[in-house]
């Protein structure tokens, strides 16, 4: 039934809106929600979903927010939605509050809700989902599951979704289980028909088929990164479960099972160990990498903290090790299911003593794949730990992304390895000799040659021939070579990407990682209101010359990040010797993904106050 509650001008929109599903976790709503997003995509309209879920398994509130945008915007728009599918009584009040004026509320009116529980400025659509489901099904599990599908059917009718597309998705999902397909189709139409029968097109937000998706794929960053690890030639994965990184390791296991089992023998070209903790994970990675396999771990903040001692060892003993850090809100256990970019400093300077590490910072699933593979080449070339810095927002949400690409002529770059043949040929080998002037020495794999090339690896100081040494000179030379190596890394890591504003401007913005869609869209909005900023997306540490040049080119550069301290800004100041006065810190760190609204507001404010001054 439709409550007409003093409706204001209704929001009218085709293919540009935000819908939010408020659910209880563990209630089986997730798959119906995902169907919604996929259906929109199948209709050729960009849809970007975000899961907001608690750190618990069952019974607490979760939300699934979908931004539908024919214009192609992928970012979280702001704190509000246009249509709320309110299925969770626990959060009813806050859910109602978050609807835009003129927006819509969709709810299950099986249970009566008093009139004062609504708002006057929204359109309320009640559909008796539970009742329909209970009438149609006996089994409690079925009742629960099909209620969600009935709801989807109702939404399809209200928003003009292509039911054929949904039916196709059922067919793909339940391949071989035709009965299930039929049952789902039936439930879908139950909801659809109810709306068509009882309501008179109350929702003026619509999805219309379009052509903005193209060949893009819909995938989450953890899956993409795990595939990157497969293509990067990783054979050893040692990991310990932790939100939001577990699905990266689990994704690797899935892809390996598909792509890396030897056809003839049915045996595995990979080894995956779920370890007892993060110390063991990174220890195994280091052991495997020392022994010539490509190895990685995936973790999040607490794991990074636990790995500190070992990371220092890998730095000082010069062992390639790839670490995917899917960042979440810290410090400590923090908010395990919320997103943040707050491990930047911890990773860049990980471990006691003087260290400096290489970070790769992907913006989306495409780069998760690309950097995921690249990390292994870089680690081998540089013989040092390489961090790939994802965050929960990129890692655990599916989103549209360029399709993955691979150059089949590309070979794994194993870096400077001295082989048995090289040794046999009499090549001089000193494990820590800087033969090429780039700070990167040669290494041998254990077991290479019966009498040459063996060396002892240690976390203590040594001379260039890898002999234990407590000589100040040996120590200092080695430490300086490591700095040189870090400088070499500057030229190997992905360069920052610049986007110049249409009009010349004194203002630049530096941003990175999951901030990217919000920044891109905000930049357009700002330009529309006459505010122009040049953009630089940093993709790695150490920073290339282009970063310094960009900053030098602007009177003020805003550094936009999702942490409290402005950690990348600190890195920029410290490593590029920048005057802090010209780098303006902008931070968003409440654990929710940064929104277009936030970015637009804060930059326009900052600029107007700077211009006022």
């Amino acid at each position, binding site marked *: 039934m439709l409550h007409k509650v003093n409706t204001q001008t209704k929001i009218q929109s085709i293919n540009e809106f935000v819908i939010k599903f408020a659910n209880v976790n563990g209630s089986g709503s997730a798959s119906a929600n995902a169907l919604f997003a996929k259906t929109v995509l199948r209709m050729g309209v960009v849809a970007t979903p975000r899961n907001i879920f608690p750190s618990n398994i069952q019974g607490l509130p979760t939300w699934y927010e979908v931004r539908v945008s024919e214009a192609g915007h992928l970012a979280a728009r702001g704190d509000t939605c246009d249509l709320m599918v309110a299925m969770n009584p626990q959060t009813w009040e806050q859910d109602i509050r978050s609807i835009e004026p003129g927006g819509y509320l969709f709810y299950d009116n099986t249970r009566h809700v008093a009139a004062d529980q609504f708002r006057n400025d929204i359109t309320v659509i009640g559909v008796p989902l539970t009742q329909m489901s209970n009438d149609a099904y006996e089994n409690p599990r079925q009742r629960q599951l099909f209620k969600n599908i009935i709801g989807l059917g109702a939404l399809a009718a209200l928003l003009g979704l292509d039911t054929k597309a949904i039916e196709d998705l059922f067919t793909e999902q339940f391949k071989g289980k035709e009965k299930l397909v039929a049952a789902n189709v039936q439930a879908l139409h139950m909801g659809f028909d109810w709306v068509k029968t009882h309501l008179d097109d109350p929702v003026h937000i619509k999805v219309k088929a379009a052509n903005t998706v193209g060949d893009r794929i819909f995938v989450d960053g953890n899956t993409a990164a795990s595939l990157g690890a497969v293509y990067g030639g990783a054979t050893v994965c040692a990991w310990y479960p932790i939100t939001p990184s577990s699905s990266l390791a689990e994704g690797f296991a899935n892809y390996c099972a598909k792509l890396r089992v030897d056809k003839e023998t049915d045996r595995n070209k990979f080894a995956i160990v779920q370890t007892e903790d993060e*110390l063991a994970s990174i220890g195994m990675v280091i052991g495997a990498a020392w022994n010539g396999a490509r*190895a990685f771990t995936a973790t999040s903040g607490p794991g990074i903290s636990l790995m500190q001692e070992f990371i220092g060892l890998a730095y000082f003993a010069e062992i390639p090790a790839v670490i995917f850090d899917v960042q979440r809100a810290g410090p400590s256990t923090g908010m395990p299911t919320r997103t943040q970019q707050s491990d930047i400093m911890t990773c860049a300077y990980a471990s006691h003593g003087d260290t400096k590490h290489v970070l790769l910072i992907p913006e989306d699933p495409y780069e998760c794949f690309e950097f995921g593979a690249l990390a292994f080449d870089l680690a081998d070339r540089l013989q040092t730990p390489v961090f790939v810095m994802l965050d929960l927002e990129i890692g655990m949400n599916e989103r549209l992304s360029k399709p993955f690409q691979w150059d089949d002529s590309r070979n794994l770059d194993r870096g400077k390895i001295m082989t048995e043949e090289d040794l046999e040929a009499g090549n001089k080998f000193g494990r820590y000799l800087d033969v090429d002037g780039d700070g990167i020495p040669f290494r041998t794999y254990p077991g290479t040659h019966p009498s040459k090339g063996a060396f002892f690896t240690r976390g203590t100081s040594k001379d260039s021939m890898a002999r234990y040494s407590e000589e100040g000179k040996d120590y200092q030379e080695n430490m300086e070579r490591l700095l040189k190596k870090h400088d070499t890394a500057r030229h190997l890591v992905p360069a920052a990407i610049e986007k110049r504003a249409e009009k010349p401007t004194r203002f630049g913005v530096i941003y990175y990682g999951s901030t990217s869609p919000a920044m891109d869209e905000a930049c357009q909005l700002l330009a529309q209101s006459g505010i122009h900023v040049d953009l630089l997306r940093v993709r790695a540490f150490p920073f290339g010359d282009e970063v310094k040049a960009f900053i030098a080119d602007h009177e003020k550069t805003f550094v936009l990040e999702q942490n409290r301290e402005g950690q990348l800004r600190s890195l920029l100041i410290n490593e590029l010797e920048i005057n802090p006065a010209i780098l303006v810190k902008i931070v968003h760190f409440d654990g929710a993904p940064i929104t277009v609204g936030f970015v637009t507001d804060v930059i326009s404010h900052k600029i107007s106050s700077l211009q006022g001054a």
Partner: protein
Amino acid sequence: MTFMAKPKFHHPQLQKNALGYTRRDYEGPVSTLCAGCGHDSISAAIIRAVYELDLPPHRIAKLSGIGCSSKTPTYFLGASHGFNSVHGRMPSVLTGANLANKDLIYLGISGDGDSASIGLGQFAHSVRRGVNMVYIVANNGVYGLTKGQFSATSDKGAKSKRGALNKDEAIDLVGMALQLGATFVGRSFSGDKDQLVPLIKAALNHKGAAFIDCLSPCVAFNNHDGSTKSFDYIREHNEALNSLDFITGRQEITVEYKPGTVETVTQHDGSRLRLRKIADDYDVHDRIAALSYMQQRAAHGEIVTGLLYVDPEPQDLHAHLNTIEQPLNSLGTHALVPGQTALDKINAAFR
């Protein structure tokens, strides 16, 4: 007291083994440990074992944690790659190395502080995973390198050099290893080469998690009266269960023993362990009985040594993981990278 001597061999150094190597080829640079340290005797035993087994030194990888004991890999097998990692974490590094290349032999050297204190978790988990390795703890009941604090294997009631009494329960690594499913468990004494060398040889040929707890007195900090890890104390309380001959698959058995006194265990690779039993009723294949025997004897103050448990058909971690025959570190682009065609299919699945 040969066990007090620095590792100097009475045998001619230059005699060659089947591979044409002399014993010197298995040595390393001069030890920097204290003169008389038990750990040096373990190094010597390792050198002898590897030499006598005709193993090419470079096919062994030596890994360790931190401590005097963990320094020893520098001092043996100079032609092997070695890895002196961080304190208490040798097991994970070794496990990773093993995953990368199943064809090398992994020798993990640790101390009682390294394995029973900070490293207890890694010790336990590497054992329960069945990593194919020889894991030797040079057990002196003390922190040598940091100058004499109690370690977790110090016995309750043991006295430190400064006179303090240990109040905590001792951790018995052998008991742990038995409980955790190690497939080869032995205990020995650095001062007893005749027992130790064949034990190491047998362990090196064991294709699973082999653990040896080797009592190894610290002459600097734990060799005084009141210590239960001093040379004198160990010699007085040592109860050898059995004595072992290790016979490779190639060798013939020549000497005959009376039936009942000798048990021959044939390992997967054809090598044989010939146990001359001292404790008659002891069954070297009964894990549970072994554990309770150990504990009973320990309660009577006896230190039981010898081969305590062996599973002749062990399964190792690679078997569990069903990895291919070829070492993972030898796989190249072709074997590992699925290429664009596979990627096209994957992309399609995400639309």
